């Protein structure tokens, strides 16, 4: 696998030389078997409703089988990468910032991480364009491509900013050891208060934007970062203080998008 591992073993038997490769291959096969269990409920639900309720044959079984195999292999590879790459990377970042001891750099990093990953999130782009159509339909903006694109971009930047702010707040909470329920329940109290004055057409979009911000790659990284930070700081428990960044990143977009709606829709 690696050149450093290969050099001292020249002449060693095949199995010894490629032990690492063989072992990871076996591990991967194990993981593929485990993924089939992860996927089984979806297959059962789809097959049951298609055959028993809608009474239709499954279309193109070969295509379905190929798709299912790809999903299984993909999930297995992702989980393998998770344990050797994303989790260690998040922990290494947390350790390095803890050693450096500069809260300002840590806040800057947290903001940049939240902002950059959210601005590029494809499901957010899709929601932003839907929201622009809603706004145009409600007469809040002109119904042409230019205004809709500008609206969608402004909405994306708003959500990205709110996720960056959430991660800064979440990291500050870990450093200070503030209890999470105060922030979350207080935040949702604020959300409910703002809902009362927000334009009706933005409310459902705002609530949904909270759910689409956290992607498959960001979640493990951010989780490992929070848990790593809590583990590196004396007196913090990884379980009590390390989790909660994702919850904050799901909350602030709701609030910011409603404020965005109040400002733009008037």
């Amino acid at each position, binding site marked *: 696998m690696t050149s450093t591992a290969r050099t001292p073993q020249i002449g060693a038997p095949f199995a010894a030389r490629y032990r690492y490769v063989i072992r990871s291959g076996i591990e991967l096969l194990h993981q593929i078997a485990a993924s089939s269990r992860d996927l089984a409920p979806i297959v059962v639900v789809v097959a049951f409703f298609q055959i028993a309720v809608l009474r239709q044959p499954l279309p193109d079984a070969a295509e379905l089988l190929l798709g299912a195999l790809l999903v299984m292999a993909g999930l297995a590879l992702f989980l393998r990468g998770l344990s050797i790459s994303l989790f260690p990377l998040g922990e290494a970042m947390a350790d390095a910032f803890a050693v450096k001891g500069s809260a300002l750099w840590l806040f800057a990093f947290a903001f940049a991480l939240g902002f950059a990953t959210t601005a590029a999130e494809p499901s957010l782009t899709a929601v932003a364009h839907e929201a622009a159509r809603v706004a145009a339909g409600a007469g809040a903006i002109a119904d042409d491509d230019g205004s809709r694109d500008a609206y969608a971009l402004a909405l994306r930047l708003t959500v990205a900013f709110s996720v960056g702010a959430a991660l800064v707040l979440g990291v500050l909470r870990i450093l200070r050891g503030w209890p999470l329920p105060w922030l979350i329940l207080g935040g949702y109290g604020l959300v409910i208060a703002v809902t009362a004055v927000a334009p009706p057409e933005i409310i459902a979009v705002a609530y949904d934007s909270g759910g689409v911000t956290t992607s*498959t790659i960001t979640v493990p990284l951010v989780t490992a970062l929070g848990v790593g930070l809590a583990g590196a700081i004396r007196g913090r428990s990884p379980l009590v203080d390390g989790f909660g960044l994702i919850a904050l990143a799901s909350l602030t977009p709701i609030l910011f998008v409603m404020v965005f709606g109040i400002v733009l829709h008037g």
Partner: protein
Amino acid sequence: MAEDTGFLALLWTTGLDTVLNVVPLVVVLGGFWLVALRRPLPHARRILVGGIYVLIGITLFLVGLEKALFPLGRVMAAQLAAPELALGGVHWRNYGWVYAFAAAIGFATTVAEPSLIAVALKANEVSGGGIGVWGLRIAVGIGAAVGIALGTLRIVLGAPLPGFIIAGYLIVLVQTLFADRAIIPLAYDSGGVTTSTVTVPVVAALGVGLASVIPGRSPLLDGFGLIALACLFPIIAVLAYAQAAAAMQKLRRR
């Protein structure tokens, strides 16, 4: 043959999208490492290899979903929502199969959600095995199932979303007062990870499909909101699961 080129094109565009989507992340991580931290990254080669695994894994995962699940899920959501119209008219009782499908597919897609698996693995590691990976995933899946089923009921009834959200948060508030302090942050986080790669496309199709076939509902206004409820109810489910587990333990000790 046309089928094959379509497949390869899908693989290529999905792979390219996946790589492009992580560019900002790589820039931020690399930038801060070089400018602020300036020290050797431990296990750099492993992390790089693992990163490539992650990218290939997500690509295969998305292509597989696009090949197998998404088209079928969309068609099924539309078919389940439609035929009842011809029968007894728009009445919430005529949509039983829609709620059942919403709950079942909500559970199944959430349990398979990679980011939920990641959080469950981390929680298991941090709690020293006290929090089970499957226990957490099933609790979150049940929460998502209830949330999405309620969301479809809301679309059929035409009831306003904020009422459901406020009721849900009042439940969370009361549960938080009585819950074990150690489980609360994890429960709150489970709300945010339920809706991702697998769940959102199917659930969004269900909401929009349902809202477009029921007279008086606008797909743009009423189709939203399912995701919000799918994020809220897992919090309730995880807190309830923890409380039930604690109560069971107390009973057993007696």
